């Protein structure tokens, strides 16, 4: 059993990572970051925390990418929080499409892409998939590759199907995938125009303007200082009167520039940028 990790040890690790690989984990929420590191120690069978430090000090970029994949939380599901997807289908998207010929959507921290498929399916059923430009980003290149492949575990499809049904999907989710080698292969035509790209919310700036940004259950892994910084990036990346959605138990109220947003739906955490 490995000794409990101390906060000072975590600081040493984040400093080392910053120096060697220019990734900054210094502002990650402590409790979950510590748990992810503890998990890596067990998964890779490190004998001690110092052994991990030594490895990070000498490893190559490829190994570090694997490390990143283990640090970032990639548990997700299609149509997570079905009531949110109903709100999106019945209010947010129709509102946006009433005022605009085309709209653009950013999935920030898209993970393995389930949320992107949920969006594409919703848009398709509203018969407006062609009017929407979607950009999906994540810090983890390996998970972006998974998102591009759109092959999910069959075992998860039961939950996904249930969520889809509760989200008032028009058909049955079977319509959108084929079973192949024990995997649910999603219908790629849904995402043929989606741009998947690497983007680090922690260190990178805005790269375009959007009508809708989804960043659900991503900022919970950041501390308040980093949340403030990321919200500024989102603010810059939104047109006036466009929407930002966060996870159902997240809140912007403690962020510095919260006053530039108004709450549209508190239950589903839908915010609107109302001030430049």
């Amino acid at each position, binding site marked *: 059993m490995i000794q409990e990790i101390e906060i000072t040890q975590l600081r040493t690790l984040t400093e080392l990572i910053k120096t060697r690989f220019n990734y900054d984990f210094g502002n990650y929420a402590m*409790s979950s970051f510590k748990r992810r590191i503890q998990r890596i120690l067990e998964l890779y069978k490190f004998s001690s925390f110092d052994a991990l430090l030594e490895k990070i000090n000498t490893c190559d970029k490829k190994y570090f990418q694997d490390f990143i994949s283990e640090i970032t939380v990639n548990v997700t599901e299609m149509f997570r929080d079905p009531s949110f997807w109903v709100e999106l289908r019945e209010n947010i998207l129709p509102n946006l499409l009433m005022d605009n010929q085309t709209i653009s959507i950013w999935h920030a921290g898209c993970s393995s892409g389930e949320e992107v498929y949920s969006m594409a399916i919703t848009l398709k059923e509203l018969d407006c998939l062609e009017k929407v430009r979607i950009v999906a980003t994540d810090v983890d290149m390996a998970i972006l590759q998974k998102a591009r492949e759109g092959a999910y575990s069959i075992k998860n499809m039961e939950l996904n199907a*249930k969520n889809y049904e509760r989200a008032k999907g028009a058909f049955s989710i079977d319509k959108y995938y084929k079973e192949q080698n024990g995997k649910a292969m999603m219908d790629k035509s849904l995402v043929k125009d989606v741009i998947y790209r690497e983007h680090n919310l922690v260190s990178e700036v805005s790269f375009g303007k959007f009508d809708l940004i989804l960043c659900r259950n991503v900022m919970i892994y950041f501390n308040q200082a980093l949340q403030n910084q990321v919200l500024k990036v989102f603010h810059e990346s939104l047109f006036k009167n466009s929407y930002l959605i966060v996870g159902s*138990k*997240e809140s912007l109220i*403690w962020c510095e520039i919260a006053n530039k947003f108004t709450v549209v739906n508190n239950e589903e955490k839908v915010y609107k940028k109302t001030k430049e």
Partner: protein
Amino acid sequence: MDKFNSIGNQYKAIVIGGSAGSFQVINKILSSLPRDFELPIIMCLHRLRHVRNGFVEALNIKSNIEIKEPLDKESIKKNSIYLAPANYHLGVDIGNTFALSTDDLVNNSRPSIDILLQTASYVYKHKLVGILLSGANRDGASGMQKIAERGGLTVIQDPKDCLIDTMPASALKLTTIDYSLNTDGIIEFLLALDKSIKSVALLKNE
């Protein structure tokens, strides 16, 4: 209340874990606490992952203090009761705030009692009281072990008093437990603890 005379007054928070068979117990406890109960109580009760509403409302019917499902980064306040929301792990972070996570299931559960107990004991150390109630799996046992290791106080619902005793029995097997109590005993304990905490506050005011 003599048997709880020696309870210290260093405590800063109470964490409670419960699963199958704990709903009635928790209801009885909540309805027995005074409106001005001092310490924050943080509860992780196993619940349906995809039913977001209804649970906290049901608990609030009997409770004297309003129970809230905390938001991520919300501050933990005195005289408050919190419930882990559906489909999130609830943790405590440094700075006395809540930290939510959508990380993998732990012990087949999200929220997981172990995660709450472990993160809370990391932050509060010997100033934490952990209470584990009736339940059908082992979630919470390793969290209770952490609380004990860091000098916190550990309380279980007496396995004989449980509808399903797997959860407290697993904790008892794994670590030292300070008190094994039936439901009324837990209530008596909490009232004595509150008295002890308030007596310090009184002294400070004088």
